[in-house]
């Protein structure tokens, strides 16, 4: 159950139904207590509506813009890809899957007798002594040393350029 004040605030804010509004208007017209309360609340309501905003100092905008100038340019984070492009790609994939499915089903006999599990026979015959000989080991170590030298060269170059950047 709403109090008299709650009902009146709803009436002032225009949040009442048509039926409630009619009842309240009748009460305001006939009940002196209701009427006095209504006028007091309406006066507060109007006073708050007419209350002016505070004014910051004259340098306010300039101060903000000085701080803003130190910030990087804001960027829009939304993607610029047209959603139609995404839908088209999705449609192509779905169409491809369905075409493949239909093709497979149309070419299969679907008889249980022919549905035997496929077998895989792989024979591995490696002679490790032929693969790992002195020559192969030499080539392997040479490549390793070459890679290590390239890496060291890049590392030294990057350090040097970093030092130059700091000095500048």
């Amino acid at each position, binding site marked *: 159950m709403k109090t008299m*004040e*709650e009902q009146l*605030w709803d009436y002032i804010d225009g*949040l009442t139904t048509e039926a409630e509004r009619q009842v309240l208007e009748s009460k305001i017209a006939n009940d002196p207590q209701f009427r006095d309360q209504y006028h*007091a*609340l309406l*006066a*507060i309501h109007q*006073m*708050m*509506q*007419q*209350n*002016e*905003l*505070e*004014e*910051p*100092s004259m340098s*306010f*905008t300039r*101060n*903000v*813009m000085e*701080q*803003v*100038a130190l*910030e990087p*340019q*804001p*960027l*829009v*984070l939304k993607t610029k890809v047209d959603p139609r492009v995404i839908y088209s790609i999705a449609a192509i994939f779905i169409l491809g899957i369905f075409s493949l499915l239909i093709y497979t089903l149309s070419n299969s006999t679907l008889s249980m007798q022919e549905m035997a599990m496929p077998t895989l026979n792989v024979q591995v015959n490696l002679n490790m002594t032929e693969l790992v000989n002195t020559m192969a080991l030499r080539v392997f170590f040479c490549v390793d040393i070459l890679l290590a030298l390239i890496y060291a060269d890049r590392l030294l170059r990057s350090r040097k350029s970093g030092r130059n950047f700091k000095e500048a």
Partner: protein
Amino acid sequence: MQQQTDLELIADTLAGKTASYALLVNRHKRFVFTMALKFVKNREDAEEVAQDCFVKAYKALGTFKQTAKFSTWLYTIAYTTAMTHLRKKRLPTNSIDEENSHLQLQHSISSYRADDVEKKSKYVYLNLAISQLLPDDAAIITLFYQAEQSLEEIAETLHMESNTIKVKLHRARIRLKEKLQVMLKEEVKELL
């Protein structure tokens, strides 16, 4: 010449025209400053909070969804910035329901009443009464009356349910009326 909308100014700012952001600041600075003043109580701090709010808004401008109202988005930043400032400063925020608040209220009123009451505008008392409310209540009153936001928009700004906002607004207005009655005593009938 037709005034550019907020969204047009944002688009210009994002395109690199920083001067357009100055126009946005000019358009909204009074409300953001008023809102900040409801939390921090002194003008220097309020100005710092309001400036901070605009800088944060600029940095996050790229994330602003242009389907929403810029003012609602900006007021959310203003509210969170002011609340963060308040937490850092740990300012006392007493409610009228608390026992000591009445004594504090009487004290502040007596200092006000020491001045010539006749010379004080009723809005001085109104703003004093609003400043005595809880920060959330003061923010809701300010958003409802001075920013002319609907209950739904306030709910979005403060991340609350619109029914909660309605109840809080109602309670805030009751407290405000009580405070005005205590402050103004005999003058209340003339002023209201």
